[in-house]
């Protein structure tokens, strides 16, 4: 479980996050939703320690992360898997080497065990046989899947996905959403997905947190989201024609 309490973050005069309080539970994906520029990614980067919050606390299963020294943080970071928006695969390594990378740096596995783990992760994301490909040879969807495979290779307790569906076709986006959900449920990990994709919200959004202009305005589930009593959220949800039609159906 990840608990965020009273997080504030500013860049110069720009106050990006205002007193965010939120709890992210394990076992099903926690989606942080909001429009572009609302502060979702900043919140995510504060939680993983890429940005230091100006005030507030972030705790991983009771361990207060943002008050730890660098070496203590390292131990928690080994428990974190992160899927970047652009995948951030290491260009100079093959798919297999990318997945083995955290294992080589931290585990005491033998080369054979690492090989088996890499093959398991690749199979899990449906890319068995792609071991020797370079990242430049992969499509956007494949890169995301390799990113997920790398993120789960060292058996993380916490998984972060920053805009996992950006730039993907709807079919691949559904595949990635399903994959994130399955991994979260199967391994019982705490997953935080940053997204503004309404399909993801409806598909896998059992726990939602809506951020607007740096403020957490609403939390709930995908069952409640269509009838939420929050003007900014309804404005965000019903921005697209498809969603407007869905609203009509819902009201009928």
């Amino acid at each position: 479980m990840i608990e965020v309490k009273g997080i504030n973050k500013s860049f110069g005069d720009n106050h990006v996050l205002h007193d965010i309080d939120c709890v992210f539970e394990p076992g099903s994906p926690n989606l942080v939703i909001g429009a572009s520029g609302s502060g979702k990614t900043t919140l995510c980067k504060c939680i993983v320690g890429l940005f230091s919050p100006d005030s507030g606390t972030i705790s991983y299963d009771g361990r207060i992360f943002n008050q730890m020294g660098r070496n203590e943080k390292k131990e928690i970071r080994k428990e974190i898997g992160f899927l970047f928006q652009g995948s951030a695969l290491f260009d100079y390594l093959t798919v297999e080497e990318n997945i083995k990378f955290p294992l080589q740096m931290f585990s005491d596995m033998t080369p054979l065990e690492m090989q088996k783990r890499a093959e398991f992760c690749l199979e899990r994301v449906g890319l068995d046989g792609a071991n020797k490909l370079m990242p430049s040879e992969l499509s956007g969807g494949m890169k995301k899947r390799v990113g997920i495979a790398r993120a789960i290779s060292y058996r993380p307790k916490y998984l972060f996905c920053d805009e996992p569906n950006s730039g993907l076709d709807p079919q691949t986006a559904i595949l990635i959403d399903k994959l994130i959900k399955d991994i979260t449920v199967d391994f019982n990990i705490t997953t935080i997905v940053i997204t503004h994709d309404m399909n993801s919200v409806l598909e896998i959004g059992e726990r939602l947190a809506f951020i607007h202009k740096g403020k957490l305005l609403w939390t709930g589930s995908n069952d409640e989201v269509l009838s939420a009593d929050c003007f900014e959220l309804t404005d965000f949800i019903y921005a697209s024609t498809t969603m407007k039609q869905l609203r009509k159906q819902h009201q009928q």
Partner: protein
Amino acid sequence: MKTLFHIGRYALFIKRVFERPERGKVYWRLFIDEAYKLGVNSLGIIIIISGFMGMVITIQTASQIEGGWIPPYTVGYTTRQSIILEFSPTMLALILAGKIGSNIASELGTMRVTEQIDALEIMGINSAGYLVFPKIIAFMFIMPFLVMLSMFVGIYFGYVICELSNIITPAQYIYGVQDDFRPFDIVYALTKSVVFAFIITTISAYHGYYASGSALEVGKASTRAVVFSSIVVLIFNYLITQMLLT
């Protein structure tokens, strides 16, 4: 103020680079890769430049001493001294600041803008140490060999041009090359080469590591890396010369 900010951040960056590595075995493999990439891949340019410079220095020196007052073997002596004291350690460092400096800055800059460095940080890896430490050590290790190769090639091609033309006889050239040789000159040159290797790798890595924004910024970081490492190489060239030769 901006200069002080960069000096301070550079010092903190160097401190992070030299922190205890996560896993020595991985770093050893990276060291070998970097030594190959930075050293072996530079052999071609070093041989070509050193060869031509050796020939040009020999011809220019010979053309200056026509008239009989100065003995012909001075050509060999001057070529050797020019190459050992200045061309091979300093000029080569400036050339490699362009080749290797831009390579390091653009590699790290690209990793920064594509979030690969953030990925390393999130995994709990000291990204500065992992990415930069092997480059520094590899280049400091390989640079003296490159400089010695450059010295040999430069002096040898001076000999070749004496064989091919009649500026002076090869025997006079060889006599000049051997005349009044001081082994300390080699120590001085190699000391400079190690210091220059450190300067080129760390300044270039600093500019690449802190690149931000887009691909355009990576290009700018690469240019800054070459400009600043060249200037600092020249400043340290003066300081080391002042310390060791006076």
